């Protein structure tokens, strides 16, 4: 049957998986499992499992980074298996994947720009010491007294 399922005469080889659905269900369970791990890690952020948000800032950033990497893993499985990009020709795959590499620059450039605006505003263009360094812990201490 699969020989007839070709959309155009220019397509030389049928790239379809006409076998079972085992791989698809396997990916479904991987996506579900990764999502549950992400939810548990995110729930920890809500319930302050990782300690004081100001003191343990670095560790919380690490947890958030780990959640981002897990999301990228989900994206890899969705694109590679559900969208069948993994079974396309390498040349075609590269026209898409290489273009998306632009995002690496895009993310680094703009997030560091935002961070720089914050620092400039807090220090009035680096002419004053960072105000938030002193203000934030004081407000925190007042809150915990309630």
């Amino acid at each position: 049957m699969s020989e007839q399922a070709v959309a155009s005469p220019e397509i030389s080889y049928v790239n379809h998986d006409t076998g079972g659905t085992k791989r698809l269900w396997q990916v479904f369970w991987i996506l579900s499992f990764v999502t549950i791990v992400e939810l548990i890690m995110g729930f920890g952020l809500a319930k302050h499992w990782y300690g004081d948000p100001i003191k343990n800032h670095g560790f919380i950033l690490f947890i958030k980074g780990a959640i981002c990497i897990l999301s990228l893993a989900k994206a890899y499985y969705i694109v590679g298996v559900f969208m069948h990009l993994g079974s396309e020709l390498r040349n075609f795959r590269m026209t898409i994947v290489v273009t998306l590499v632009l995002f690496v620059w895009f993310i680094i450039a703009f997030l560091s720009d935002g961070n720089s605006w914050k620092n400039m505003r807090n220090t009035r263009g680096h002419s004053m010491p960072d105000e938030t360094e002193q203000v934030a812990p004081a407000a925190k201490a007042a809150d915990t007294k309630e």
Partner: protein
Amino acid sequence: MSTTTIPTGVKWWNGGRSPFNASYGKVMMWYFLMSDAFTFGAFLISYGTIRFSQNVWADANKVFDSAPFIHGGAPLFFVSIMTFILIASSVTMVLAVHEGHKMNRKGVEKFMIMTIIGGLLFLGCQAWEWTHLLTGEHFALAANGGLEGLNTSVIHNPWGQALSSTELSSALAQTSPEVLKNMILSHDHSAVLNGLSADQLLEKVNEAVAAGHLHVTHPGPIAFGGYFFGITGFHGFHVFSGVIINLIMYIKTKLGHFDQRGHYEMIEKAGLYWHFVDLVWVFVFLCFYLI
């Protein structure tokens, strides 16, 4: 994963065959999705830039902590349901594509219907969430020094830092009795407040704050609402158009158009779009709810 191996040494660029071994429509669907990925990426990165530029941002675990019949205290619960609905509809979509490869019309129909239902369920969840944010009141410090009830919208964001106890008592002293009544009613819908004096209302509000039922905050950055409603709205519009496309594909399957054509490639192209919608949700979920 493919069952057909392509022999080595094929001259792909000599003409007479598709150099990507794919139809024009499928290749162009991929490139459309790539440009759409850059649109979504630009929105999300712009959101990230503004978020990085602020000292305080709305805490997602407080903004999105409710679900139907659950009034607060359940962070991530409702959005995890939405996420699993989309993952499940992605699986039914890929199963429909799989049945299409086998030229099994009944199978395609069954899985397309399941995918459409998943999409509609997701849209229903999103409608509930938007309604909850746009109609729900949260109490924040107003310009006049008292407190006011604000919804979460593109012009209001009540989700800033919590007030300290001294800030709270001076703000409450300048708050009108009507707002105090609304504050009590916002967590206790059946409270009877007729005939209570301003001092008695104040006492009830203080009790509720001490017990953690009421959170009183500074207003947060206005940009939060614009980004949240803009990006989830743009994604929701993609889900909506995906449901329409899937519905058309279902009708065409039912009418036997793809059997006449000899292949189910249209289901594959609709599937690419639907999986892309799921893919974008992975990142919307990450950026707005998880981190």
